[in-house]
């Protein structure tokens, strides 16, 4: 063991490195999120958090579970493949942000540094408050025209009209029922 003679200072130095490595591991343990590296070089828990975002469009099945009469009418017409929320908007709607209590002096100081994002307005579903949260009753002069105004950019086989010439200023629903727009289905009278 003659080569280790007088090598004590090297061992002490190596010991310092090992100690520093242990400190690094302890700090890393507290600083690096638990799920980092679970699937790759990112935080695995982020996917679960992103998936928590509230869905606002509920799908036509939800609408049809109550409005089966409209669904039945729609199923026979040319708009059968157009989902309810495509025209009426999402079933979940944002409510106004409730009045927040005024932050204390400490919180205001913290806010100066961290700039917290504004709170999300609460959501309410049409089914939970059918009279309070109503899907949009679209204005046909905007809704129908947006899709069916004639334009050279639209596919040639898509039904298009020049509104001023086509209806002479009459609202679309005079002749076409939006849920089943065929002339034989009658207007929304």
């Amino acid at each position, binding site marked *: 063991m003659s080569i280790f003679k007088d090598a004590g200072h090297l061992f002490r130095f190596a*010991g310092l490195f*090992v100690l520093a*490595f*242990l400190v690094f*591991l*302890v700090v*890393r*343990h507290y600083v690096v*999120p*638990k*799920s*980092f*590296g*679970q*699937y*790759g*070089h*990112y*935080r*695995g*828990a*982020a*996917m*679960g*958090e*992103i*998936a*928590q*975002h*509230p*869905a*606002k*469009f509920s*799908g036509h099945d939800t609408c049809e579970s109550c409005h089966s009469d409209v669904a039945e009418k729609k199923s026979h017409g040319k*708009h059968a*493949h*157009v*989902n309810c*929320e*495509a*025209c009426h*908007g*999402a079933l979940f709607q944002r409510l106004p942000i409730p009045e927040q209590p005024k932050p204390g002096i400490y919180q205001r100081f913290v806010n100066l540094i961290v*700039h917290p*994002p*504004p709170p*999300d307005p609460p959501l309410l579903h049409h089914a939970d408050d059918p009279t309070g949260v109503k899907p949009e009753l679209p204005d046909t002069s905007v809704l129908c025209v*947006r*899709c069916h*105004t*004639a*334009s*050279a*950019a*639209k*596919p040639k086989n*898509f039904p298009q009209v020049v509104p001023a010439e086509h209806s002479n200023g009459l609202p679309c629903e005079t002749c076409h029922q939006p849920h089943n727009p065929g002339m034989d289905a009658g207007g929304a009278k």
Partner: protein
Amino acid sequence: MNISRRQMLILLPAAAVAWESVLAGTPEQASNYKMSDHWWGMLIDIPKCIGCGNCVRACQTENDVPDGLFRTWVERYHVSDEDMTRPEVISPDGGKNGFPVAAEDDKKYFFVPKMCNHCADSPCTQVCPVGATFVSPDGVVLVDQKYCLGCAYCVQACPYGCRYIHPQKEVADKCTLCYHRITQGLTTACCEACPTGARQLVDLKDPKDPIHEFLKTHSVQVLKPQMATGSKAFYNGLDGSVR
């Protein structure tokens, strides 16, 4: 048991590493959604797009996208026979409220919906210095907004211009392919709102998905294929002038 100082010094770091992996826990999985069973993408059928902007409005509602910024938008191309490489492209307010009427002329018009291509080899995830953006095991390019520094490298790296810095959150933001919906068995908000079926969510790992038959029987292209990004936004009827 006698352990020498040398053995102790070797064992301690090894024990620390082992303890670390114990604390990391097992992968969290949603009860009925298995990431390894899916590989998501989008089919965009250009000949079906009427430029109504329903997709843009639905996306903004669903994902609380700030005004003036877009996770998806629609462009209208106007291409002449003589100069295909320089098309006139407009997208007023992302096409959110439709487009001005296009009068018939000797040039070609068409709409192109754009969104994150959810690339398998995405340049945007490769440049992130902190691991805040990534391709998930089910093929969706996501941003971990708690981890993002807002350095905007990814915004510059995306060849399709699909990212922006969220003005209030001050972090990168982009299309999540409605990850909160597709993991629940719903389709994306843009697909839900599209009146003509010009957009379809596809799952390339689902053998029953009609996309397999569609890809076999149609001339389908991705945007900027020369960049080898592994794009999963498949465009049917894509014109060569589209950038």
